[in-house]
């Protein structure tokens, strides 16, 4: 069965595609290491093990947040591209344009922070990112937002190219999402899960990017014409619509790796089903309208919007999560799973996703949110979800691909040691955040009270372990990707 071939011919990378894929993946792992280093510095500073001036801390926090979110977007875009191109025609220029615009955007953000001293973070609340009280000039805020605009435009270009490919093949996005099979009819068993997931991401994240294109330009206009005053609540809604969608899309792009690869390692087909289609259709709608759960503390927000935010929070990611985890567990149960780095990383990612959404659902409850939202509970949630959920999905694909490269030892002893260190470090690091949230430790603060420092120090230890494991992964993956293809594997060979 073609779906169970470890390296199918349809995944062969041409020379140009291999260069582009390597650029994405190597850039991503290098950026992850650098951004994690900033994270370690900040946690050590909060834990009083390092002296970091508050203004520098907020610049590092701005860089870490923007850099991590952007890099997650970039690497999971590569995951989506790698698999979606098997089913529809994707143009390499769009994939490369996204990469180039990402780099240009990243340069703008780096310049805004390290040259322009921007420290207003992402996400910011209006009237930030301006009104810095002399901490940074308005031009730095402008460069920071231009960076985001460039990254958004790049991703929109890639999505439009993918949309063109999908509508050419399936007629429209409704059909590629599988809506025609929701209420009956024989589901095409060959309809790819990657196509369903990609369609959902395109619909939802394109809306978020358009919202971002509106609000970021309005902020820029506000810098040039300060007499324009925006409604802060509308500005916040649009900012979170964009920000929430962008980061949420990463897991839905990343999970494509699980859909495509899991069956190859379990040796058992992973069939599409009506519940699967229903869950993705429901999540397409819910994910678009779930962002008000970021605004539950805004008393000026209409009550019905907040209540909707709570209800949708419970249901937005849940259907897809449920069918994915249930489907994956059913797929691997007594399958004689081939345990290696990709399969281990996939299982880790499902655990990270499952456990990571629990604190999110709790925080999406209005009565809990009122107490927990401005504490480290929230970074506890999204670090859990990203570090142990999304990133392992991308790493699984990288490990899978380097498995086809020349002279690769699959599942080496260092790999077997690196993964537990990553998991242990990740758990210590994220649970320290969650425990701090339970203790009402405020988030986004450079200096902490003495009573809070213990959790910071525990978190710093976890962060160091994660960083060490990631340095190993990054080195291993970079070397692996730069190696030529194994002549034994047709796929991934240069055409």
């Amino acid at each position, binding site marked *: 069965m073609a779906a169970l071939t470890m390296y199918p011919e349809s995944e062969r990378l041409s020379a140009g595609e291999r260069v582009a894929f390597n650029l994405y993946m190597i850039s991503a792992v290098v950026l992850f290491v650098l951004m994690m280093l900033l994270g370690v510095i900040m946690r050590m500073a909060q834990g009083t093990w390092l002296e970091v001036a508050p203004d520098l801390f907020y610049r590092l926090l701005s860089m870490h947040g923007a850099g991590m979110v952007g890099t997650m977007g970039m690497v999971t875009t590569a995951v989506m591209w790698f698999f979606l191109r098997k089913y529809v025609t994707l143009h390499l220029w769009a994939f490369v344009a996204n990469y180039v615009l990402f780099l240009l955007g990243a340069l703008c953000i780096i310049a805004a922070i390290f040259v322009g001293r921007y420290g207003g973070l992402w996400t910011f609340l209006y009237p930030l990112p301006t009104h810095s009280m002399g901490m940074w000039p308005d031009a730095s805020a402008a460069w920071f937002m231009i960076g985001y605009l460039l990254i958004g435009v790049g991703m929109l270009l890639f999505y439009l190219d993918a949309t063109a490919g999908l509508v050419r093949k399936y007629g429209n996005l409704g059909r590629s999402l599988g809506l025609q099979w929701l209420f009956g009819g024989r589901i095409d068993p060959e309809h790819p899960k990657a196509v369903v997931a990609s369609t959902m991401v395109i619909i939802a994240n394109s809306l978020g990017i358009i919202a971002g294109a*509106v609000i970021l330009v309005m902020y820029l206009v506000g810098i040039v014409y300060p007499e*324009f005053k925006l409604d802060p609540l509308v500005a916040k809604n649009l900012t979170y619509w964009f920000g929430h969608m962008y980061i949420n899309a990463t897991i839905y792009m990343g999970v494509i790796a699980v859909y495509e690869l899991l069956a190859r390692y379990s040796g058992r087909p992973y069939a599409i089903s009506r519940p699967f289609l229903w869950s993705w259709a429901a999540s397409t709608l819910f994910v678009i309208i779930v962002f008000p759960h970021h605004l539950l503390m805004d008393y000026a927000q209409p009550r019905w919007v907040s209540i909707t935010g709570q209800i949708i929070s419970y249901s937005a990611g849940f259907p897809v999560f449920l069918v994915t985890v249930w489907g994956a567990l059913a797929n691997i149960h007594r399958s004689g799973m081939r345990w290696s780095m990709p399969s281990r990383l996939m299982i880790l990612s499902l655990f990270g996703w499952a456990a990571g959404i629990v604190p999110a659902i709790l925080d999406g409850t209005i009565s809990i949110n009122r107490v927990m939202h401005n504490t480290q509970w929230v970074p506890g949630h999204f670090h859990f979800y990203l570090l142990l959920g999304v990133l392992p999905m991308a790493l699984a694909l990288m490990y899978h691909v380097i498995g086809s490269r020349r002279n690769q030892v699959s599942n080496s002893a260092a790999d077997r040691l690196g993964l537990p260190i990553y998991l242990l470090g990740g758990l210590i690091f994220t649970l320290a955040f969650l425990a701090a949230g339970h203790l009402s430790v405020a988030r986004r603060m450079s200096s902490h009270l003495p009573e809070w420092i213990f959790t910071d120090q525990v978190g710093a230890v976890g962060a160091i372990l994660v960083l060490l494991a990631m340095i190993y992964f990054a080195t291993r993956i970079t070397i692996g990707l730069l190696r030529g293809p194994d002549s034994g594997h047709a796929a991934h060979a240069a055409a």
Partner: protein
Amino acid sequence: MRLRLPTIAACVMAVLVLVSPPARAWLESSMTAQMLVQLPLLAAVGAWMASALPASAGEWFARRDRWGINGLLLASMTSLVWMLPRALDAAVDDAWIAGAKFATIPLLIGMPLALSWRRASLVLRGVFLAETIATCFRLGWLYQVSPQRLCSNYLLNDQQRLGYWLLVIGAALFVLLMGKLLAGRFDPGPDAQMQGGER
């Protein structure tokens, strides 16, 4: 080569009607009418003119407008000028600027849009439409919240009404586009031809 004289005559008539003092007085009496009725009508006349162009002129333009990029860029850049409140104001006060408006909107917005749209790939059309929707929301919002009149010829409430209608138009375009993407049919057009050698 054959000029479609009746169409050209009808286009010229339409422009003359739009230029006539009664039509101008009515369509330029408010910022909303000028921006949302007069300018789109002028662009529509330009698009209509495109259908009357002789084949040789169409081919000449096509050679300079590969994949519709130059035409859509020209239309976008010209639209940028006529989106500015200062330009709308000047077109009411100054005969030369008014002349420029009546010439450039049909010829540099309507006509290239009509000619280039069918050549444009789905990606390019998507970029154009997404930016159009975002621009409607941005301008609509700006006109709604601006504390001062942006045109000396029009009152603040007119400006805010225009802002409201731009938001409505942006939302309507968005709903139509989503409906088309989710349930519509697509002409593969030039995308299908581009599939071969461009991966």
